[in-house]
């Protein structure tokens, strides 16, 4: 179940980010298939989880017990919570969030941005989708930054589904505890190393 969007909004986000990072004909995934909409949804709804899904923990690898995963979400300090609630929810007239003036949160920017793309966004053709995205460069930029995060960040944050974006560009991510040998650092040939998980 989504943490923030409804299913229709999720579909619009998926369609929009697929225009920004489309699949190519050689098997590289687009942002939609890589799960970017889930990434954005988890981020915008981070405070529906406890601890909130802002900072994944460490260490990766499971070499001292536990799973090979970063999935140990870290509690936020009070000021970190202030920062992230304001960034996501906006300042909403609260004095402690408006020390430098009102802040429009990302949740509102998405609601407004998706509204402007139109309820029929998923049904219109790609050229029309591009035209609508180009009408609001601020929202397009925000969406693109989040699309990049959802593509190429660690899958624990909800995107990069099954590591497909990393696999498509030959990135193995965290290689602890194996690391790379000195020859793998200094050698001319880039030896392929499998993902550690």
């Amino acid at each position, binding site marked *: 179940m989504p943490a923030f969007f409804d299913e229709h909004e999720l579909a619009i986000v998926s369609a929009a980010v697929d225009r920004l990072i489309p699949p190519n004909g050689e098997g590289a995934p687009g942002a939609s298939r890589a799960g970017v909409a889930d990434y954005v949804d988890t981020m915008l709804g981070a405070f529906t989880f406890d601890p909130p899904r802002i900072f994944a923990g460490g260490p990766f690898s499971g070499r*001292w017990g536990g799973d090979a995963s*970063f999935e140990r979400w870290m509690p936020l300090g009070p000021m970190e919570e202030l*920062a992230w609630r304001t960034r996501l929810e906006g300042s909403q007239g609260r004095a402690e969030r408006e020390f430098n003036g009102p802040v429009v949160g990302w949740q509102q920017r998405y609601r407004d941005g998706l509204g402007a793309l139109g309820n029929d966004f998923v049904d219109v053709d790609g050229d029309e989708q591009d035209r609508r995205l180009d009408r609001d460069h601020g929202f397009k930029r925000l969406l693109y930054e989040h699309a990049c*995060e959802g593509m190429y960040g660690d899958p624990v944050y909800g995107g990069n589904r099954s590591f497909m974006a990393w696999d498509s560009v030959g990135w193995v991510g*965290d290689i*602890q505890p194996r690391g790379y040998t000195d020859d793998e650092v200094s050698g001319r040939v880039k030896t392929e190393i499998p993902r550690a998980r």
Partner: protein
Amino acid sequence: MPGDLDCDAVIVGSGPGGSTVADVLTAAGWSVIVLEKGRNHLVSLEAPFDPSGDLSNDEIKFSRRHFLGPDPFLEPRTYRRSEADGERLITGEVNNLPSTVGGGGFHADGKLPRLREEDFHLLSFRGGIDGAAVADWPVQYDDLEPHYAIVERLIGVAGDADANPFAAWRSGPYPMPPGPDMFGAILTSEAAAARGLHPYRAPTGVNSVPYDDRPACNNCGYCGGFGCPIHAKGDPISSLRRALRTGRCEVRPDAYVTEIMLDGGRRRATGVRYLDVAARNALREVRAAHVVLAAGAFETPRLLLRSEVGNSSNLVGRNLMYHFQTFTVGIFPFSLHGERGRSVTHLHDDFMVPDEHALAAAHAAGLPWIRGGTVEHGGGGTPLMESMTYPSGPQHNVSMRDSAIRDRLFAFTMQAEDLPQPSNRVDLDPSIVDAWGFAAGRVTYRPHAHELVASDHYAPLLEAVMQDAGAEFAFSTTSPPQGDLDLHDISPLGIAPASRHVMGTCRMGDDPRTSVVDSASRFHDVENMICADSSVFVTSAGYNPTLTLVALAHRAACQLAAVDVLDVPNSGSIAGP
């Protein structure tokens, strides 16, 4: 200790400078309280002081979500080039260094060169330059050498003592040999040597062998910008653990220092006030016999200006220096796999010593001399940051697959000498505040002609070397950018200097009218307060500042405790995670 004091010394800031002072003072029998504004992700503060286990090779956490702080929403900084820009040009991130237990030692990839002899007496050796406050340091290289030698052992620096013909004299070898060379740096070093330059394996605060009971680096590659998940980097965990183990050190994270307290005569500090962030910002005090400021060359002057302390010279915050950075970038037709291993493995220092061509370029520009800086040979990126440098659209996936920026890019970064200018400064922004309501720090900075002439002189040579090394093409850019502001919206480095080497805002000197601290890093105005960060630098030289600021902090702490050059033994084991 008198009954109304909480400790012998209160230390503001837990980065490389503050943690070194804590290490020395506790070894000398003093009690210290370390106040750190940020959170603690480094080390458990309960015996046996294990690593926190909070670190992970996670690009979102470190590069996108301000995990190590400061969050630019909570603590904005502002920047303008000069007063002609109005009150500010930008608000947000300006030269942010981690605000967390361990400070800037946490995320650095640990290039730790020493300065050279002449860097400490530049005015005498090369002469002044109009418009710049070039001056000699009151501390000379020979004074600092014993401290350099000790802090190289305390941090754990891997290097080759004989490799750099420009290096200053040294009393002994590095404690470890260098780690493995990155493939790209092997190519660029050979090309540089063929053009008569003298590249050498960079002294790096990263274990090449097990050292100080910390493991050898296993080349995972998440280095600069990340915290080391196995503590193979010389982050301040070692010095803080040694201090904690004495039982005479208390580290208080989430402690935002608001004010330095003085006594009625205003010549002595009585302690500091701070907000206990984790306790709804409750106001607390630490009363101490001595105060040590180690908040960094941006936050230390901000605290002094806010407290109206230490500034009879009107020089607090002034003579702000960075390193003027020239980036010469080459794109290669094959993989350099620079994401493996250390971020930089080679340097060359030739441009610190102007030859006849450099002097001719200086004279042609009306300058008596120019100096460049150490040149870092480095490369390798991570996919999230790479992806954001490419445009959106159908070419995105093609660009990511071809990976010019992550896998096939190599760069020279010249960390060039930035001359001190009193008009370059940190002060208090007139209207932007932080989340606690205190005035944000504001940078006013523009480079001197010296920096621009030096960059223009050396960049073509670096481009030629890069092409000799096999790059298909090479180009150069600088930070801060040169030329028309309108062009810089597209620069991923931004308009403000991207350098995290911040120096000079409480310069050291013998004359209280022309300096803020004396040769022992003691404030001229406040007899029991010292500075233990790069604020005290008189000139910036062209070398990464961390080792020098730590050596100066070590020296200042030894003098404060009236101990000889104190060689704190390495001790203790650091087990996983």
